[in-house]
């Protein structure tokens, strides 16, 4: 045992301990010399938040989630976050939990309540504890789109059976509603846009287009009177069917992975191209609803169907979360 070997043993041990300690601190992003403090928030539920997820303020990481525990009594969930001491929180701060990306990692973002007034935050009784809200994630959004697509399918099925003047008016009303729904959908998307930017932009532009299409459809249906008796109904209906089929595929794709994003956009594109063509046809006076109007029973059934649809859409406007949840679980 020479002195040289003994020194070597010392060097290796010091290197090992140093690596372990510094590595751990570094991976934890603990910045030595800078203090941290704890912030607590209460939520109705916390989605897929996990210990160790980042805490952000204006998109900047300022700490990590320390612990997540259901309150005694099960009324709420308490989330403890350790953040940098010198970071100043905004006035009237609340915490929004949302996915950071499509892959299950969530984040807690501290924001000012007035920026996102639309959410119902949990209201804690303790003054120093923040209120919070967990956003629905992408699967919920997908489910909403699915719902709309299903409604559109019903709509087309009914359209195939009857298309009266009254029906046309109802349709225009329904499309009004679709427009509103799509705007809500867009809001939902906007809320999450910060995180999964790419996908969200696609969904958002799709929804905007859906809204635009609905508006032009609205205009078109005002001219429905004028186009009664015009030829080409079959091709028109085929177009509607194809459009709905595309919409359906689109919503299915929303549910699959990011790889599907491109396909999804392509589907959306062709859907709207077809919808555009449909509207153009209606506007130009092609197609005829006369034959459909001749059958009274059909007309009545069509009106019933449209009433159903309308009730459905009204309800969706009132309680979007109900549908969202139902279709997930």
């Amino acid at each position: 045992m020479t002195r040289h070997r003994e020194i070597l043993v010392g060097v290796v041990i010091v290197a090992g301990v140093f690596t372990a300690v510094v590595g751990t601190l570094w991976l934890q992003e603990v910045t030595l010399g800078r203090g941290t403090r704890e912030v607590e928030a209460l939520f109705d539920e916390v989605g897929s938040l996990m210990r160790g997820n980042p805490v952000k303020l204006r998109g900047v990481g300022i700490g990590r989630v320390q612990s997540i525990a259901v309150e005694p009594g099960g009324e709420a969930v308490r989330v403890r976050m350790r953040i940098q001491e010198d970071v100043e929180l905004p006035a009237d701060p609340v915490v929004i939990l949302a996915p950071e990306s499509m892959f299950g990692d969530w984040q807690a973002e501290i924001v000012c309540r007035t920026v996102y007034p639309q959410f119902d935050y949990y209201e804690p009784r303790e003054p120093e504890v923040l209120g919070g809200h967990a956003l629905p994630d992408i699967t919920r959004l997908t489910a909403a789109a699915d719902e709309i697509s299903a409604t559109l399918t019903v709509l087309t099925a009914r359209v195939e059976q009857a298309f009266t003047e009254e029906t046309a008016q109802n349709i225009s009303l329904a499309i009004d509603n679709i427009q509103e729904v799509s705007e809500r959908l867009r809001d939902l998307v906007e809320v999450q846009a910060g995180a999964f930017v790419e996908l969200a932009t696609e969904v958002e532009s799709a929804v905007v287009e859906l809204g635009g299409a609905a508006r032009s459809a609205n205009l078109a249906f005002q001219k429905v009177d004028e186009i009664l008796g015009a030829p080409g109904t079959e091709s028109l209906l085929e177009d509607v069917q194809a459009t709905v089929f595309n919409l359906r595929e689109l919503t299915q794709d929303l549910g699959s992975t990011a790889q599907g994003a491109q396909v999804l956009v392509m589907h959306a594109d062709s859907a709207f191209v077809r919808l555009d063509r449909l509207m153009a046809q209606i506007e130009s006076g092609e197609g005829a609803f006369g034959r459909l109007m001749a059958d009274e029973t059909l007309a009545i059934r069509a009106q019933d169907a449209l009433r159903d649809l309308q009730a459905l859409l009204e309800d969706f406007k009132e309680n979007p979360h109900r549908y969202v949840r139902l279709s997930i679980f």
Partner: protein
Amino acid sequence: MKTRFLLNPFYLVGRSALDTVAQIGRWGGLAMDTLRALPQVGTWGRLLPGQMARIGVDSVPIALFIAAFTGVVMALQASYTFTGAVPLYFVGTLVGKTMILELGPVLTGLALSGRVGASIAAELGTMRVTEQIDALETMAYDPAAYLVVPRVLAGIIMFPVVVILATATGIAAGWLTSLQLLDMSTPEFMKGLRLFFLPWDVQFAVIKSLSFGLTVTSIGCFFGFTTRGGAEGVGLSTTRAVVVSSMVILVLDAFWAATLL
């Protein structure tokens, strides 16, 4: 005759089960002797640094070598598996998590069971068959204090150190691979690395490697001590030490995963 032939498998199973239990009992005996020898600091204290150098320092190159290549391969295979579907920064997550939790401790443990366990078994086995251990005893030395304690202590102290260095090397190799071959950026890799990291992971790895150090050295000592016969017996002990300590490492690995994670 026929029934005896038929009963042979049962005999063999029973025989080997009893042998195994007896071996464990004898190992326990040596463990007790070793514990009893712990207060004899005067005897083993002088020998500990040498064993730490042999068991720890000399094992660093092989451990780092294995870890570095594991890190490279893991980064490449992760990126191959993730093609398109999962963002590349998960390469960092995979390399980091598996290196710290599993591959760092276990691969190092297995490599050192070959390097350290075999050399201890061969050395002590030779000492046994050439009566050097008897000679120690006649000179009023406690063989457990003189031979076993310094080796086992050195294993317990140095294994975690070697594992930590190996793990860090593996992660660094994975990072360099991501940078050079996968076209990832450093922040991307770091993001993945930090994503699910918990300080507990490191403690877990240290606990695991402590137990591996204890396993490899004590099993090496045990088979060395119980060596019978000449050179052939030494060879047999060496092989057994490696095989048994590798198996125990894997069993312990599963045990820790089940109890501590």
